[in-house]
């Protein structure tokens, strides 16, 4: 399938370097708009509604149907707040950190195949190292977090930054190892290959054929990945870096106004990136019956989002030492075991 940049340049009849550049720019803008519409506009609204449903409340309902109208005044309110820059912050680092957090999460979407809708294939790039690319750019967020924590000149931020790094270190490795077990199944790091490998039929029950989604082929890896991803995006029970009742708001304590919006947005985009990754490598990407692929893809992302919100409402936060020991002593060993097991199964079983 042709990728989105080529489709755009074909549409405008452009060729050569300029065509590639123009197509990439327009394509990237389109993808960003889709992601931001989900993460920045629908995300916070959905979070409020979902949390309210879990806690027996009604939540926003005054403006528009289901309170959808609140999105606009909300964003105006957030953006128009006074920007408070505390004394003694390390200026360039403090300014750059929120941008890094958002950008690192957004970059990951470049290689995610989001399926087709109305004949448009929403897939920006398909490098042969797609999966590694996602992990690599998503990890850059840790740099942003520690920058934010360290440059804020606030002890709570500092603690939050340190916690964020400790947590990301502990959970990045199981995350990637579990991801690799999928690569063994698919035989490729390329996202489109991974999705294609999941389109085969696993079993057929009557008229119903169950696709070979890796989440179904290897549910153990799926669970591991889901958990590690929760820690990666910093949601309960692993929201240690923010931990409002302990260290106020962690690394984002000193951020206000636009910077706060960026940090907040970064978190949401991260959750969505985690969802996109899970959808792609475990849930068959955009595959699904009847509806267009892109819609299926969105449904899967939102299902993961719902899961994170569910955990947030229902599970207590673990302590920092428990988090680290779960990561290094539990998740790491399980993910290595999973990797070895997968390798053995794939090696022994005939295709």
């Amino acid at each position, binding site marked *: 399938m042709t990728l989105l940049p080529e489709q755009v340049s074909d549409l405008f009849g452009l060729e050569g370097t300029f065509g590639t550049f123009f197509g990439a720019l327009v394509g990237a803008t389109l993808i960003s708009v889709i992601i931001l519409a989900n993460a920045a506009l629908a995300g916070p609204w959905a979070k409020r509604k979902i949390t309210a449903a*879990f806690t*027996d409340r009604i939540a926003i309902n005054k403006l528009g149907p289901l309170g959808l109208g609140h999105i606009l005044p909300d964003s105006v309110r957030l953006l128009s707040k006074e920007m408070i820059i505390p004394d003694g912050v390390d200026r360039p680092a403090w300014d750059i950190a929120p941008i890094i957090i958002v950008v690192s999460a957004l970059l990951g979407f470049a290689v995610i195949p989001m399926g087709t809708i109305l004949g448009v294939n929403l897939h920006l790039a398909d490098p042969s190292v797609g999966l590694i690319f996602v992990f690599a750019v998503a990890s850059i967020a840790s740099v942003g977090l520690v920058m934010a924590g360290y440059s804020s000149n606030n002890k709570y931020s500092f603690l939050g930054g340190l916690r964020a790094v400790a947590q990301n270190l502990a959970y990045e490795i199981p995350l990637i190892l579990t991801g690799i077990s999928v690569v063994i199944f698919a035989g490729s790091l390329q996202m489109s290959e991974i999705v294609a490998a999941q389109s085969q039929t696993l079993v057929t029950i009557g008229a119903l054929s169950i696709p070979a989604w890796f989440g179904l082929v290897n549910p153990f890896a799926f669970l591991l990945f889901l958990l590690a991803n929760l820690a990666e995006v910093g949601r309960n029970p692993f929201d240690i870096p923010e931990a409002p009742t302990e260290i106020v708001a962690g690394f984002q304590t000193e951020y206000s106004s636009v910077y706060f919006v960026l940090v907040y947005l970064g978190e949401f985009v991260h959750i969505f990136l985690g969802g996109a990754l899970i959808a792609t490598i475990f849930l068959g990407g955009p595959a699904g019956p009847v509806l267009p692929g892109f819609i299926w893809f969105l449904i899967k992302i939102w299902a993961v989002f719902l899961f994170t919100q569910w955990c947030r*409402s229902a599970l207590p*936060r673990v302590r920092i030492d428990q988090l680290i020991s779960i990561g290094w002593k539990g998740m790491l060993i399980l993910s290595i075991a999973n990797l070895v097991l997968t390798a053995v199964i794939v090696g022994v079983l005939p295709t």
Partner: protein
Amino acid sequence: MSLEQPAVDIGVTPEGELDYDELEALLDEHVLEREQHVNCEGFVIRPDEVETVLSTLKREAGFDHLSCLTAQQYQDRYESIYHLKKYDEPTHELAVIVPTTTEEPTSQSASSVYDTAIWHEREAYDLVGIDYEEHPDPRRILLPETWQGHPLSLDYNKKKPQIVPLREHANPMEKRTGVPGESDTMFINIGPHHPATHGVLHIKTVLDGEQVVDVDPDIGYLHRCEEQMCQQSTYRHQIMPYPDRWDYISAGILNEWAYARAAEEMAEIEVPEYAQVLRTMSAEMCRIAAHLLAVGTFALDIYGDFTAIFMYAITDREKVQNLLEDLTGQRLMFNYLRLGGTAWDLPEPREQYFEKVRDFCEYIPERLDEYHNLLTTNELFQMRVMDTGILPPEEAKSYGCTGPVARGSGVDMDLRRDDPYGYYEELDWDVITDDGCDNFSRALVRLNEMEQSARIIEQCVDILEEWPEDEREIQANVPRTLKPEPDKEVYSAVEAAKGELGIYMRSDGTAKPKRFKIRSPAFSNLQSLEVMAEGEYIPDMVAALGSLDIVLGEVDR
């Protein structure tokens, strides 16, 4: 019972009564004089023998509970009164009175005998101005360090305003000791504005990495001179609204009862049985409301967000408040009790109200199952709160902890049973204790206590329903202006939501008390935070603070 302690303490008759003569003999020549208080006798001792006398009493006679320390100034002297009790038998009370001269108000500190004396003596120094020798931490506690004068002393100029700017407190580290100098520690101010402090509490914390090395709670941000306000109000009408504002988390009637009990004992007022049942029922409703909030906010501290359990607790608390509103007309500041009775009878139609209360009593155990599902049987929750914030029973006693905090450490004391008042003696209910000594047990005790409270309420409803219509007496005969005889002293306590809430009053023959002292349970409980938190991680300190269930309005008064 350890082997060191004799089965029957010295100074107790075989019938279980306190024998003051034997106690006097035990203390020998230390007792200079004996005084008669309303509930107990007082021994006057020399200011330089406090430690000897108290340690003898604690060791030999089993007075292991320093319930309260009242300091006051007379025209010719200062006086510190140590109100001693026993955890096993709270009706065994003894007041140890330590007079000092006006010129040199110096008295020996009791802090080496009872840890709880540290804070109580700091308060006495702060508000009245008595110096305690050998005190480990002789600072002010409620007022800022730079405050001039002692507000409850006789020569204090109440007209002169004092403004304390922030820069006076620029260096909060200065006077702290006990922090290892060589290790890499970090000082951090938790509060006064922090999501976990449940009000304006400021905890000066020293961290070693994520571990807490030293905590020093700094209280007094919500000090509203409640004791002084009560001293300027009349017994009969003006004091009663104030107790609602101490523990303002809907434990109002429990607090009112503390004052009502002390004043009624002082003025020898008999409360009609019917009013006692009403009081018992409404007080237990308040206890449920207070415990619901305690459990909800504790969960909030552990979970970290406004999660299901907190909202459920608040929803249920609203239901109790509806019942209380029907009864008293208020949702928070009830002002329901009167000296000698209550303000109103049950709302009409009575059957409808009984039905509502019964429904609630049936509903609460169901909900408690839900709480147990979400909290106590939740493995993640257990992982977080079990074996953290350990408060051993000996420490709990030494720090004067009472209420669910003490009962969570296995200290079996509940004034409702041990020093009965109201209608509790006639009813069938259990005192909940747990031997866990950790954050989990304290939460568990609260959850289970709610079930018992529901039982009490149900029985009260049964009794009220059967009560003959012409005997519904809600108010005893109390003179319009209550003037107890001069120099009567009373110290009396009830089991409030957070523990033993005691009131000390001294009359001078007028319609207003000369000295009004509040023994706040949260104040004493908060002091034990140091024991629970030091050496733990920050999250466990926060959990310990949540499990203490302090209300700053009551701590600071």
